[in-house]
């Protein structure tokens, strides 16, 4: 970063900007703690970290209204936290405890929350897309002003379910915002080896869906794009597609040896990471200094420590409960 950081534009509220930053740091620190807990064996299974991509989820969630639904992937801790699922129950879920948001049945890849209409946590790539379309269909048939926010990686766009879901949403003019987190890799497969047309917005446009591409490392840009999408979608203009260009700083999962990219490439992106650039701008605008930063970090650390303590103290779901929730317990 040779250029001097730009101060924030005038129309951005300082407190709000600081809140965005805090959210991003909160997700980052949480993920770091997850990695630590994974190496200690407290978290198991597959673990996919969101580190590097925090500006995307943070920007999106600013426009997600209480009545909206979010359908995410296996890389969804950040989205879950940003959506407002308490950190305690997210951490407890990853520890496989009864106090977890899914009573330990879902784990890292399958976070769910009824209160915030967080419908997973889906570990089948592309699998959440039709679900999001259906949720939007229900909302539109019931005359509710709810939007379905469908979050997925660029790798998912090669799946047939992307195609079918885009078409249905566009044909029926449903309130779905398709949020593509383009981190340029699907596991070890780079975008140009997964798509013949790498300008992803062209795909969305081929369904007559309004589409834009945005810098996913700039939280103000992601926030603004999500706001445009929400406005368009809520006023009945049908689905909207946003490509957020971002980058994953960590391995795909804890099993990935990262043979498909070099350290320099990652490092280059880290230099322009979402926390780093936004912190610099906040500083340039006089909104953040070392003291403030330390205070904010301390507060987050305390929350995370409390979440770990909560998760550690949690109860393993008794084995006798194994067959619960295969079918509903009472007719609804």
């Amino acid at each position: 970063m040779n250029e001097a950081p730009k101060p924030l534009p005038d129309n951005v509220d300082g407190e709000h900007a600081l809140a965005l930053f805090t959210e991003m740091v909160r997700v980052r620190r949480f993920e770091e703690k997850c990695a630590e807990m994974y190496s200690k064996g407290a978290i198991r299974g597959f673990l996919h970290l969101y580190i590097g991509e925090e500006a995307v989820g943070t920007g999106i969630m600013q426009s997600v209204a209480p009545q909206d639904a979010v359908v995410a992937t296996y890389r969804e801790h950040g989205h879950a936290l940003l959506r407002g699922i308490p950190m305690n129950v997210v951490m407890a879920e990853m520890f496989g405890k009864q106090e977890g948001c899914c009573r330990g049945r879902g784990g890292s890849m399958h976070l769910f929350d009824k209160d915030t209409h967080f419908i997973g946590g889906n570990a089948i790539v592309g699998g959440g897309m039709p679900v999001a379309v259906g949720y939007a269909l229900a909302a539109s048939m019931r005359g509710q002003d709810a939007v379905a926010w469908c979050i997925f990686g660029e790798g998912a766009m090669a799946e047939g379910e992307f195609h079918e879901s885009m078409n249905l949403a566009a044909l029926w003019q449903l309130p779905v915002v398709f949020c593509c987190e383009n981190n340029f890799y699907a596991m070890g497969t780079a975008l140009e080896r997964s798509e013949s047309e790498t300008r992803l917005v062209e795909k969305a446009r081929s369904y007559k869906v309004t589409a834009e591409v945005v810098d996913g490392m700039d939280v103000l840009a992601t926030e603004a794009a999500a706001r445009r999408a929400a406005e368009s979608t809520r006023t009945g203009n049908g689905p909207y597609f946003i490509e957020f260009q971002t980058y994953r700083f960590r391995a795909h999962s804890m099993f990935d040896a990262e043979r498909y990219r070099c350290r320099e490439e990652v490092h280059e992106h880290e230099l322009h990471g979402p926390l780093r650039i936004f912190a610099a701008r906040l500083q340039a605008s006089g909104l953040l200094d070392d003291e403030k930063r330390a205070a904010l970090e301390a507060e987050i650390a305390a929350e995370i420590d409390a979440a770990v303590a909560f998760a550690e103290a949690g109860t393993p779901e008794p084995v006798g409960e194994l067959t619960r929730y295969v079918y509903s317990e009472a007719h609804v």
Partner: protein
Amino acid sequence: MNSTATEGMREITYREAAREALHEALTNDDRVFLMGEDVGRYGGSYAVSLGFLDEFGPDRIRDTPLSESAFVGAGIGAAIGGMRPIVEVMTVNFSLLAADQIINTAATYLHMSGGQFNVPLVIRMATGGGLQLAAQHSHSLENLYAHVPGLKVVVPGTVEDVRGMLLTALADPDPVLIFEHILLYNRKGVLPVQAGAVDIDQARVRREGTQVSLITYGGSLWKCLDAAEVLEQQGIDAEVLDLRTLRPLDDASIMATVTKTRRVVIVDEGWRSGGISAEITARIHEQAFYELDVPVQRVCTAEVPIPYAKQLEEAALPQVSDIVAAAQRVVNGHG
């Protein structure tokens, strides 16, 4: 079980009964809608929803593009979103395009979410052979789904069941798959004038008998009843048990008929290996081991993709004569 209307009863086709149930559901519950390929303007590929588009409008009778995975998955999302979707997949073979949504999503959401998100989704599909539609339109794949916890699988064989089970399925909080056999749509049966929802927990004895139990479901029910007639003329008194639901199976009713007759033939239009008849055989073996004098016989579809030519298709599918022969074998003590 015969088709003459008596007092308080009326004669109706299976198609008409399915249609009445849909009509009733659409009329009584705003949350219900029907979605699938050609359910609207075309009138349904088996004409079950003919005229519904005019009556209920395109919002609730929703023609979909050819995209089984997305519209089945959209059914899941709509169910979670508070609707009561009925998704029609034309033919069970095509449901394989939606197998991911059905097995990886619909069947798992309640469990993965720790009980938070149930999926009150009904999926109807046509199943079975007998119309010379060959290897991509004639299979009976219901057992693939009956293997999967989280799903319920019902197989109405009668007009009462095809009418009632839809209503029961809609009242169910979890995903229910309804398999309608293609040869039944034109079949007539009698229905109480006040027909309504029916249980989907219990198998039902469709014909009482003492010497051999024919255990079956769906399209094969009628072949078993015909076989029972033939057997009667031969002095063999057959009981016919209609399973009605393949998941969960009603063990109690199965064991009751087994204990009564001590001789069993299972008739199932799925392929033999790994089919539902294997599961029933295994359960009988486990739960009624000391009740049987001869082993259970399975009459299933030959292990071939169903061929087109009439004589080959007939040879592939279970026929009345196969059932009769199997019953004779068990009654005569060589299983």
